[in-house]
């Protein structure tokens, strides 16, 4: 058994070498397919974390009219907390809001100056409400708008956040769809090209195969080299695709790290690299075997 595998492996490596350009074509197309698939995986992972980050940052701020007392607001706070979809609420008093505002605008003397000129505290007390699920903000705002304390509420700032989230969601969804389509198309092309390569290999080896049959080689012995050839395509392509992906990541790293993603893209990629490589290997080997198998089924009459 090991003998057979050893011999056929040797045979397939020789085939791979002697087929030169054909092998290069097969490997490069499969590499491209796996590269697109890998990039898609990274994109999905990055977008997942980005979305999670953004979702964590969103909340609904409910601002109260200046004449609403703190006790009333605390009552409303506990009322909101009893609402099932609310994860947490945080009370920000007028004073704290002023302090925060001053802190945030410490570098803007004009603003601080004008604040002083107004005198007193123009800011409103507010409740920051976070939901369990970003899709529930709609319900929460509706609940607030119809609640018994609706007359105390000055305004609810949710709408503009909602637009950003919706846009992000749809962009990510579109990107995934396009990526998936690209990956599928390139996988189909890869299968066709490997299929063709193996077909030509089979033609080249026709006399040899005939002799093999006549001297009583088992079907497995005849087939294995072709299967191994497919596997070689898969392994090589996934390695190349990983290298390409690494280069791409390095290239776009400065544009994405720390702005969209809260940490370095490279670090993120490295943490996932072996997982992605593993999947690429699996897919590559599967595609290699799959296309070799159809070629054999069709052209290797044994």
């Amino acid at each position: 058994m090991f003998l057979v595998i050893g011999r056929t492996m040797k045979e397939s490596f020789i085939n791979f070498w002697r087929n030169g350009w054909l092998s290069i074509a097969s490997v490069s197309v499969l590499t491209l397919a796996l590269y697109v698939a890998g990039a898609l995986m990274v994109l999905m992972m990055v977008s997942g974390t980005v979305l999670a980050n953004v979702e964590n940052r969103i909340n609904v701020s409910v601002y109260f009219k200046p004449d609403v007392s703190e006790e009333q607001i605390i009552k409303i706070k506990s009322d909101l907390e009893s609402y099932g979809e609310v994860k947490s609420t945080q009370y920000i008093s007028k004073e704290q809001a002023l302090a925060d505002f001053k802190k945030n605008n410490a570098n803007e003397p004009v603003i601080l100056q004008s604040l002083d000129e107004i005198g007193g505290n123009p800011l409103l007390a507010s409740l920051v409400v976070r939901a369990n699920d970003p899709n529930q903000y709609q319900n929460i705002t509706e609940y607030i708008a119809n609640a018994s304390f609706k007359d105390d509420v000055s305004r609810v700032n949710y709408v503009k956040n909602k637009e950003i989230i919706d846009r992000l969601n749809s962009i990510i969804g579109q990107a995934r769809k396009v990526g998936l389509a690209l990956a599928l198309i390139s996988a189909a092309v890869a299968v066709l090209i490997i299929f063709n390569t193996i077909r030509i290999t089979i033609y080249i080896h026709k006399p040899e195969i005939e002799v093999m049959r006549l001297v009583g080689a088992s079907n497995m012995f005849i087939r294995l080299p072709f299967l191994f050839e497919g596997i070689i395509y898969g392994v090589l392509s996934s390695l190349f695709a990983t290298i390409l992906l690494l280069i791409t990541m390095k290239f776009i790293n400065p544009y994405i790290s720390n702005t969209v993603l809260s940490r370095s893209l490279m670090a993120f990629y490295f943490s996932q690299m072996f997982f992605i490589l593993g999947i690429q290997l699996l897919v590559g080997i599967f595609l290699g075997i799959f296309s070799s198998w159809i070629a054999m089924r069709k052209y290797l009459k044994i």
Partner: protein
Amino acid sequence: MKKVEEIENENEVVEEAAGEEEKFPMFKFDHVTKAFKGDAAALSDIDFEIQEGEFVTLIGHSGAGKSTLLKLIYAEETATEGEVYFNGAPLSKIKKRKLPFHRRKIGMVFQDFKLLPKKTAYENVAYALEACGARADEIREDVPQILDIVGLGDKMGKFPHQLSGGEQQKVVLARALIHKPQVIVADEPTGNLDPGNSAEIIDLLLKINKLGTTVILASHDRDIVDRASKRVIVLEKGKIICDDAKSKYRVC
């Protein structure tokens, strides 16, 4: 379920064959007819037996059905009617999967050699053993030995194109013998050779036969058949017109 039954049936047949081996001729053609689609029958009502250790020459013009008959023997084709038995087991019942094992009992020699051009004489012979799954040390030992026997001990490293026709055919013979087959099937082995080389090949076949291997030789050349001077089966238009032990073609 059906498959399992089939396999079991097959095993029964094999067991029967093994149990009563003495009784069965090596090959038995039982009223065999072979027709290819759209053509007249290539073989019709062929009925004869070949015993173990025999040297049988098949003779007939091109298209008389010699090659077809040999193909039935190595199970490349199956009979349209009737049945070919090998040691009592019907060949048409051989599973595709089991076919290689049947082939390993047969050594084949062809008019066009069918050597692998990119392999040396040694590698060509070793290849047959590799394909059967032989161990590496076995191969290293047996291959030079067999090449010595056919008289090519000093040309093991040569590629087919560096060898003469006769030498190439000897490599083929060595390849056919390397896995110690029960029977050698030679289809016009001298078709591409001059008389001197042809005689050498025939002598080698006779020698092989003397050592106990059954030989089935097909040829259209009466000199070859005369030289062998063994049982002759004459085929004409797909029919056996003469089956005579120890006969010369002329007499038939």
